[in-house]
């Protein structure tokens, strides 16, 4: 890494070694992942062979997505509490209590232990993003009479940025 102007001791041509990851650096996400992965494994979690974002230990499931964690417990409430304390000791994180939202997916629970997931909030956000708040609602996602495959030649190009 080339020395920046902010370092007085670094004359042009010399190299500085960063001892820590900086926010926004190319290497930062990888280092963060190594750090949290190592820590989770050190407190007794085993990484799932089927999905690397899933960590397991007796009675505890933990889902990791960058810096969001979701913990599921079954008969190991004490251990769950302990894990949360261990995590809070190492990282500055908050315990949001019983899960209500994870990655934009809303989790709702009824009294008798049933639950449902929906993306109401996310859907409203994307409707606002594309300015369709006042558009007429429909009852099916695609019209069976529009033939999507036959538009190749005659159609005008659409705004690529908006389409993707």
């Amino acid at each position: 890494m080339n020395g920046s102007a902010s370092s007085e001791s670094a004359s042009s041509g010399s190299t500085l070694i960063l001892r820590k990851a900086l926010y926004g650096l190319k290497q930062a996400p990888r280092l963060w992942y190594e750090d949290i992965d190592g820590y989770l494994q050190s407190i007794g979690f085993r990484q799932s062979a089927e999905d690397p974002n899933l960590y397991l230990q007796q009675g505890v499931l933990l889902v990791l997505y960058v810096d969001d964690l979701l913990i599921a417990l079954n008969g190991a409430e004490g251990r769950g509490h302990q894990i949360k304390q261990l995590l809070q000791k190492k990282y500055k994180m908050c315990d949001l209590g019983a899960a209500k939202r994870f990655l934009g997916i809303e989790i709702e629970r009824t009294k008798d232990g049933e639950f449902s997931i929906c993306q109401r909030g996310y859907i409203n956000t994307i409707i606002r993003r594309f300015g369709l708040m006042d558009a007429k609602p429909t009852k099916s996602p695609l019209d069976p009479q529009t033939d999507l495959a036959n538009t190749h030649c005659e159609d005008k190009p659409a705004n690529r940025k908006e389409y993707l």
Partner: protein
Amino acid sequence: MVGSLMYAALGSRPDIAFSVTALSRYNVQPLEMPATAAKRVLRYLKSTSEFRNHYRRLPSYSRSDTPSINIIGYTDLDWAGNLTTRKSVGGCVFGLAHTGANEELVMSGLIHWQAKSQSVAALSTLEAEYIACSHATRESLWLRRMMKEAAGGMAVKIVDGPVPIGCDNQGAIKLITSGVVRQKSKHIDVKYHQVHDEQMKGAVKFQYVTSESNPADLSTKPLAVPRHEQLLELTGLAPFGPDDGESEYDESGRSRKVKGGEVLWQRKGGAGDKELEEERRFLLLKHVLASCRQA
């Protein structure tokens, strides 16, 4: 827009999975017509933003200390659905299985779904269905393995034995169970015969369901409103859970959501046979016209 729709389709909405697959074909070269269609999907989401996947309590919870979980899948396809390439779209849905009134397994709470354009142009519906079954088999193997691993440290048991997968093509089921390759199926690629192998090993069990009651239909083709709503009912996607105390069923079995005496949402009855028949005729005509144009 397609990217935003994709996250919804992956997160909780199998009902728009096919739409997103179809629209993604235009990612290379976006055109006005698919852009308008994408807006329609958003308008659909607007009217159904409350729809949720509900996971019912497993009945075995009350019976034993270690409840068992079973999964059930369905697969379907739209043969030669892509009119340009004549490739088929295959789809599968997997859900938690409950035991119904006659000891049969009933799907409740979707856990996994997929809509996928097949990589080869299939010559017959049998071949396309066979390929779709092969995809579904691979998905079920992965699902089962992951669930088993996750259940390892938990006080639940994943049921052993074959994963039941519903399929509405008798010929494909025969081919899967017999493995006998005949004149019209001898060209099918070796890799798809894995499904016969897994059936013999007892990892999956393909069984017949009528096309009417196959929920995977939802993720393979665009459908008219009555059939779409019928399939939403089959997959259990609804703006409320079955037992949240706010929903009720009227005398004809149609569900509706009521809050403070006011009807917030009401599901219409199943598809009328007449409407379905008309839709089928129309689609047939469209396919004939399209092939004339190509010829």
